[in-house]
Structures are given as structure tokens and as C-alpha cells.
């Protein structure tokens, strides 16, 4: 069983578009995969998003506490990357564009996503970004 967390806009869910910010997304959509099929979908509000600092750490903590073992991200800061690695959560990178959770999960199941191991933006890059 794998549980994939995806930062999402609005209320989250399979048809929601991915949020390109990890720490400051609105929600995390958590998708459980069993036998290569979606077995459960759950949305969690990102309570960390409006804090002034340390949001990447708290966001990692939120998905860690929901037992996620994989995450798909676009922009990822250094503290978030460090935290996800400390929690042994695998980090996949979106190929870009406005993709929905469903589309990203399909890409993941077809092994079309790239694994990343470190941050791809500097600290505080998520602050004030539009979406």
C-alpha cells in the first residue's frame, strides 16, 4: 500500500488542480493506492499555510502524521525537503502544467514521474506566490 500526498488548491480531491507551492497550499489530497488502484481519497486542510515561517516543516509534519509515504510536488524549499527526507517520504516532481490529482496519480502509476532528493527553490520562495 502506498499513500501519496499532493498539495492542492481549494478543497482538494481527485479533480482538483495541484498547487505549485508545497508549504503554502490550501489542502493536501491524500490518495491511497492498493493493487495499483486508487482505494481511498482524503483531503486535509493545510493549517500551516498562513504561518510566517517554518511552513515547509509543518506541512511535512501534517502529511507525515497522515502516514503518507510519497509526495508529488512542484516547488519545494530547503526545510520542506529536509523534513520529507527525515520522514523517509519519497519526493516526486510534477512534469508541470495545470494537472489534476487524478492525472498526476496516473502518471505516478505509469512510472512517468521523476524522483527528486533536494529542494528546487530557496527558502521563503512560497511567500506571496500566486498559486
Amino acid at each position, binding site marked *: 500500500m502506498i499513500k501519496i500526498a499532493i498539495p492542492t488548491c481549494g478543497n482538494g480531491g481527485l479533480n482538483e488542480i495541484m498547487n505549485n507551492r508545497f508549504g503554502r497550499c490550501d489542502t493536501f489530497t491524500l490518495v491511497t493506492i492498493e493493487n495499483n488502484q486508487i482505494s481511498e481519497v482524503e483531503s486535509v486542510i493545510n493549517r500551516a499555510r498562513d504561518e510566517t*515561517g*517554518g511552513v515547509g*516543516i*509543518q506541512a511535512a509534519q501534517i502529511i507525515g502524521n497522515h502516514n503518507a509515504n510519497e509526495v508529488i510536488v512542484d516547488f519545494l524549499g530547503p*526545510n520542506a525537503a529536509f523534513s520529507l527526507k527525515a520522514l523517509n517520504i519519497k519526493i516526486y516532481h510534477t512534469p508541470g502544467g495545470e494537472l489534476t490529482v487524478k492525472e498526476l496519480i496516473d502518471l505516478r502509476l505509469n512510472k512517468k514521474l521523476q524522483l527528486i532528493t533536494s529542494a528546487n527553490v530557496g527558502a521563503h520562495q512560497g511567500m506571496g506566490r500566486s498559486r
Partner: protein
Amino acid sequence: MVKPKIICVTGGKGGTGKTMVAVNLATMFKNRGYKVLLIDGDVENPNTYLLLNGKLKNKTEVPYFLPKILEDKCNKCGFCAENCATHALLYIKDSIPILISTVCSGCKLCYKICPTNAIEADLKVIGWIYTSSAFDIDLFIGELKPSEARSAAVVKTLMKTLEKDIITDQNKYDIVILDTAPGAHCDVEELINQADLVIPVTEPTRFGKLDLLRIIELINLLNKEYRVIVNRSSLLGYKEKFLLDLEEKGIEVLGDIPLDEDIVSSYCQGIPLMESSRNSDKNGMGYKSFNEIFEKLMEWGEFSK
């Protein structure tokens, strides 16, 4: 306890001549027989010693608290992580918190509140303090380790070093001059807060005025007396308008220093313009204006030996 008079040279904007003013004020006090200590609190770019042709000596480390979690004592309750203001402790249910040391502010709260005393005080080095002397002026210099953020902590250590010195010998210094970093951040605040008199150094430009007004806001918040020095006052011929503007705002001016090649060459030599052993042009604009500033400073403050 007899306290030396503390003068803080600051200014908001970078490159206005804070260090040049601090070094020459220190030199003028020394020329009059005062025992002078110059503290370089611009810990991100300490360079007073360069203007005094001095060397960094007697390096000591500035340690800073980091929590160390003792795994055998931790009951995995997460109380430390819950209360960590900077979120430097990452906690997952029923597991030992993980420290993200780069965001730790060193506040020790976790260490104090852990219900099972599972947090030990560990230390990391965030910078260094040097003590030195040049031209009969004692120097304390702080340096922040690159990539570290806690400049105010290095500045605090500088002031503690002074405190210790004064406790052992009350008469060690008559005058202490503090040279701050640009900006109006907490490291600058820390130094202004220790001062008896504050001297913001500015220049007659739009940037100069903007940053001067910001630093004055901070000085007023800290309830300190200040007088401004306008450096490079002959720049672009805006001096009169600039001074008038300050007057209208009720900002008192200690004096102004026009552009002067002798100042530039003293800067390059590493010998202060006002150093008596230097062959400075006694009729030069810079030399004369520094003397005038010093006279006004002596009227403003009460300085005893």
C-alpha cells in the same frame, strides 16, 4: 559602578561613512587623553580594524544553544514540537522529534519544558569575537559565521565582553564607541539600546534621508538622544536643502563632512584622518569639519576621564 560613556554610531543606510566617523571620533577622544574602546558591531562585515591598519587577534568562539534529544529519555509526547515558535522540531505521532537546526532560534524553551528532561543543551558556533588594539585604541570585533542568522547574539556577546572588562577594572575605559551595521534590525537595536548618545551618519541623497528617518524612528522608540552627522555634504550641492529639511523635521545636526581627498587617502592608508601621527592637511575641509564636530560633541555630552 562607573560606566564609560557609550556613543553609538549608526545610520540606517549602508556606505554613509559610519565606520569612518566611528574610527575618527575614537581617535579624537584618544588624542585628548581619554581611554577609548571601539566596538565593531557590524558583525556581517566587520572592518574597523582595516581603517586602523590593525589585525584580528585573540579569536574566541560565540556559542549558541541547540537542543539535543536524548532518545532513551524521550517519551515521544511532542510537547516540545508543539511549543516551538520557529517549528524547528518536527514531530510525528509516537516518534522522537527531529531537529531542523537551521530554523532553531536557540530560545531554550524545549529544553526548559520537556516533561522528561530528555533535552540536553548542545552548542553550535555562530561567530567569533576578536580583541585587538591599534593607535592606542582598544578594539572588540564581532564576526558572524557565514550562513548564520543570529547577528544580534554576536553583538550581545561583544557587549558582555565589555561588561566583564568593566567589572574587573572600572576605569579601564572612559569612552566606548559602538559602530553598528546598516539597517534598523535587532543587532543595531541592541547597540543603540546600550548607548548614552546616538550619532546617525547620513548623506544628502534620497536614500540617505529615507534610511535616516527609519533609524530615527528606532532611536525614538528606544528613547535615546541623538544628533546627526551629514557626510559627503558637498555632494551634488544639495547640502543646504537637505539640512533645511532636517531642521524642519526637528532633527538636530552635529555637523557635516564635505567630500575631501585627504579622507579618501587616510582610508586607503589605514591611518585615521584625525590620528596625530598622520601628516593630515590641518586646513583640509575634512580635518576642520571633524574638529568642529568634536567641539560640538564635547558640548553635547559630559565626558570625564
